[in-house]
């Protein structure tokens, strides 16, 4: 195992290292002074930032006061933050990320108050009334409740049901309440309940899903099929009484909507179709670079740069030239349509030891050290 690859995982992925990876990395640290120097330099940066990051309590009290909500503080808290204002303020102002953090805390406050407002509707107090009034009250109450329930349910449905629509050719990135992401490639509609999300959505049209890993299953329903997953990435196209599912990573169960449902499980790189009223077709292996091109994503899996440039050029409608020395180099990555082309090329060149040159004809990728 290459310790630099492990270091890359350590920085860019959020799962833990395996014991083998950890062992290999420690071995690398013992034998490679360059790795130690780079790694300790990186640790110094984090130690430096951690040293400057104000305590949680200080940051919250400061953020509330700075956002104009000093009346949320007790006299004691206001006095404390006043005494420390200069120090905290100078740190926050000199660290843009810490400044973002104070804005986020102000947003958290507003979110809490929104939740408070929607849960603290008034509750009735008890009165003693003459006995006859209960009969009249009962009739009025029944009518009122019926009217209220009708209005409430209609409004509630309107308020909580979210409908995202992407017109033909349009791309939309929808962040769902559980942090999963639906990338709609129009024409597509996605419907879900934002208040009682329950990890369930209804799709028509085309979308690529990035499902956050949670203990509860995520369900995508179409007119023809139901897909159940825990955490994974896959594309779905629904229309003309057929749903197609293509899995990029993870594992999904695809079931028909018939009774009883019939289902199959897909592995990465596999595809199935579900025609209305029929069982899913047996899975077949496909090339996701080609089969998921409609998503607007560019999937590169050990793809030669020659082909990667063609895929990116046609996806983003830009001209990309690759130096002959780099044509056979292979690259891997998944790039959603919302990532600017410059960032995509920067990412690729990082792994190639190359650089991007932009001119009036488009982009050129050339070796860093020819």
């Amino acid at each position, binding site marked *: 195992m290459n310790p630099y690859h492990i270091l890359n995982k*350590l*920085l*860019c992925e*959020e799962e*833990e*290292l395996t014991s083998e990876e950890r062992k290999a*990395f*420690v071995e690398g*640290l013992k034998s490679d002074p360059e790795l*130690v120097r*780079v*790694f*300790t*330099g*990186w*640790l110094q*940066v*984090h*130690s*430096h*930032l951690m*040293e400057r*990051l104000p305590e*949680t309590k200080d*940051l*919250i*009290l400061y953020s509330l006061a700075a956002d104009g909500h000093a*009346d*949320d*503080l007790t006299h004691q808290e206001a006095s404390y933050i006043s005494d420390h204002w200069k120090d905290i303020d100078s740190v926050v102002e000199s*660290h*843009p*990320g*810490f400044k*973002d*953090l104070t804005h986020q*805390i102000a947003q*958290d406050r507003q*979110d*809490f*108050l929104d*939740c408070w407002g*929607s*849960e*603290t509707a*008034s*509750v009735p107090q008890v009165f003693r009334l003459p006995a006859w009034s209960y009969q009249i009250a009962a009739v009025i109450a029944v009518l009122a409740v019926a009217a209220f329930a009708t209005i409430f349910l209609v409004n509630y449905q309107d308020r909580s049901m979210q409908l995202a629509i992407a017109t033909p050719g349009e791309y939309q990135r929808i962040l769902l*309440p*559980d942090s999963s992401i639906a990338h709609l490639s129009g024409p597509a509609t996605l419907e879900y309940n934002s208040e009682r999300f329950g990890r369930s959505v209804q799709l028509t049209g085309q979308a690529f899903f990035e499902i*956050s890993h*949670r*203990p509860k299953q995520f369900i995508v329903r179409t007119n023809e099929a139901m897909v159940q997953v825990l955490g994974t990435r896959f594309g779905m196209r629904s229309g003309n009484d057929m749903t197609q599912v293509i899995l990029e990573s993870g594992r999904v169960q695809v079931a028909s909507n018939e009774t009883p449902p019939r289902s199959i499980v897909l592995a990465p790189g596999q595809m199935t179709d579900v025609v209305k009223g029929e069982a899913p077709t047996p899975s077949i292996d496909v090339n996701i670079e080609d089969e998921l091109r409609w998503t607007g994503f560019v999937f590169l899996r050990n793809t030669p740069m020659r082909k990667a440039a063609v895929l990116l050029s046609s996806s983003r409608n830009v001209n990309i030239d690759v130096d002959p020395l780099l044509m056979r180099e292979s690259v891997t990555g*998944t*790039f*959603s349509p919302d*990532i*600017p082309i410059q*960032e995509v090329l920067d*990412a690729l060149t*990082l792994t190639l030891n190359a650089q991007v040159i932009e001119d009036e004809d488009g982009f050129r990728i050339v070796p860093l050290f020819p």
Partner: protein
Amino acid sequence: MAASKFDPQLVLRAKKGDERSRNVLLERLSVVLERFFKRKIGDQALVDDLIQCTLLRVHSGLIALKHPDKFKAFAMKAALFELHDYYRGRHSMKERSFEPELLPEKNYSINQSSGDSMDVEKALELLKPRTRRILELREHGYKYREIADILNISETAVKMQVKRAFEKMKTIFAD
């Protein structure tokens, strides 16, 4: 006529030790907290933990609450403290777990002297502003996906910026 679910009289009775009032108060607050933490965190098991920690904080701090009509701000701060403590606690930088294995190497120990801190500050200034923001938000414990949402960019872009920062640091520390 109607009364607030968090009527100051209810808060006052709870503060004075009336067990029933306290139970009613905390039960009503737990509904608000559930909605809030679900919106912020999502995962039900974590949400349940955060609700319990916040209720415990409110329970133990209630006796010192001087103004019962300020209960909303009191509860809000308790929820924010728990939420942000959780962020910091969940993401103790994985890189740091290697420190004990490095420290015996005297030459490479992490020096916190002011001179080195100055150098690190200068190195940080060489990064693009957005890259620096990402590193600083990461330090608070936000995950890449959350940072992406805060900065309104993709998660991949966030990871790339971290990688680039690292590449940049490599050259800086090589000098």
